[in-house]
């Protein structure tokens, strides 16, 4: 099922992100998903060699999730494939019954664990959206016709509402909407006021936006993100909160409380929530309970 169907029905969509392992055994991942996510989330994102770290493929993992009765979102970046491989993989996704895509530029190769690799970037997030739109219209990027019925997807993209240059984010968001984006998942939000202000402008595009949540695991992680991750800023007060009761933070309770609080404050201003648990998938049900979802 396409994610866009939920938005059309006015439902508040919930998605969670999982990262395939560095290897091809995913039984534990399937167990985790079946235990904590099944029945609680509308769809599961599968990352594409996230942070340029080489792992099991997103497409194959999506197929396994679909076989488990889950709805998957195939994340696709421009870092490792040229336009021929990207188009081919999108057609493969259609064949495998995958209907949701999240289309990204991708991190640079030098950030990952194979930094000697050739960075491709033949296309980027905007031209990748355009590419999928063309496939849906029955032709490839060069204008050659496809055989048979064209594929159809819910095309997603990302945006950073709490970036230090929101104006630039809005320009880019508009480019993505024009290129065919039908829903957005955001970078992690820790400042609801900033998000709400961003949404005042973003809602003019008329495209559903899902609030991004990264569960804060520790004060150290928060500080690391502040220094190194684009579009994320964790306020000092939140870092203090994580520091206050070390045991509680370590048990994940503080992170769950903070995440649920952000969702409660923002949910009236957006159309869904996207949780990036980074290994803490087991905390997702608690967050959703506490947020009243």
């Amino acid at each position, binding site marked *: 099922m396409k994610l866009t169907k939920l938005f059309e029905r006015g439902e508040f969509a919930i998605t969670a992100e999982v990262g395939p392992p560095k290897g091809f055994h995913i039984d534990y991942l399937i167990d985790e998903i079946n235990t904590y996510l099944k029945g609680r989330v509308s769809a599961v994102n599968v990352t594409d060699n996230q942070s340029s770290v080489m792992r099991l493929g997103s497409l194959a993992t999506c197929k396994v999730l679909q076989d488990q009765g889950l709805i998957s979102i195939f994340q696709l970046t421009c870092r490792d494939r040229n336009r021929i491989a990207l188009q081919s993989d999108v057609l493969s996704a259609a064949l495998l019954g995958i209907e949701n895509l999240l289309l990204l530029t991708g991190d640079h190769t030098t950030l990952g664990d194979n930094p000697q690799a050739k960075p491709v970037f033949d296309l980027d997030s905007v031209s990748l959206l355009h590419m999928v739109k063309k496939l849906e219209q029955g032709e490839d990027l060069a204008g050659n016709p496809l055989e048979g019925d064209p594929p159809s997807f819910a095309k997603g993209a990302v945006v950073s509402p709490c970036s230090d240059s929101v*104006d630039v984010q809005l320009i880019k968001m508009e480019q993505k909407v024009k290129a065919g984006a039908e829903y957005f998942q955001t970078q992690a939000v820790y400042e609801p006021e900033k998000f709400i202000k961003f949404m005042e402008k973003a809602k003019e595009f008329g495209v559903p936006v899902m609030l991004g949540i990264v569960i804060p695991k520790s004060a150290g992680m928060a500080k690391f993100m502040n220094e190194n991750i684009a579009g994320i800023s964790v306020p000092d007060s939140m870092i203090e909160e994580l520091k206050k009761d070390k045991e509680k933070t370590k048990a994940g309770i503080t992170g769950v409380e903070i995440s649920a609080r952000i969702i409660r404050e923002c949910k009236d201003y957006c159309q869904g929530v996207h949780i990036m648990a980074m290994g803490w998938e087991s905390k997702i049900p608690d967050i959703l309970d506490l947020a009243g979802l």
Partner: protein
Amino acid sequence: MLITQLKSKEVIAKLIKGKTFIINCHGCKEVYFPEHEADKLQKELSAEGNVIEKITRDYICSTDNLQVQLNKFMDKIQEADTILVFSCGVGVQTLAKSFEDKRVYSGCDTYPLPGFQGLTPQKFDCGQCGECYLNYTGGICPITACSKSLVNGQCGGSKNGKCEVDKNMECGWERIYRKLEKLKKLDILDYPVKIRNYQLPFEELPKDE
């Protein structure tokens, strides 16, 4: 060895608004420049629009040299709304940097030709992409100033104006946005999706004989 090819007259005519100052760059042996065609095109532009001066210089890619060469034209340049440059991508970028608050546009696309590369030491870099984007990017080259050579705007990795690849490097697209903001030309980014063409038309270009 580089080849510069004129952009079409329609493209150029759309760019030049108001008083226009034209600069040609000849003299560099590393660049093939379509002198005749450029001259013809510029005559047509002069006949139809407000071209207040048209000069030809050499090595405008050297900032110091450029200042000296343009000294006696400063008044006219300040008066101009648009500076239209016919040179390789490096020359256009040098001009754009020297006249930060002017709209500096490129009249050419720059292609590579295999073989010897230029000797002139330069502050700016042109990747000879064959479809010069400088007219959309405030004269800052997205091919060489962005680590991913992106042509549809910034990636999600820029933090505090720096590039995700190197914290000591300014994000090329951040520079482009700030420059366009200064020129009040941010709306220029509202262009149809750009897709690079890696099939360089070597065989269609004049050979350097």
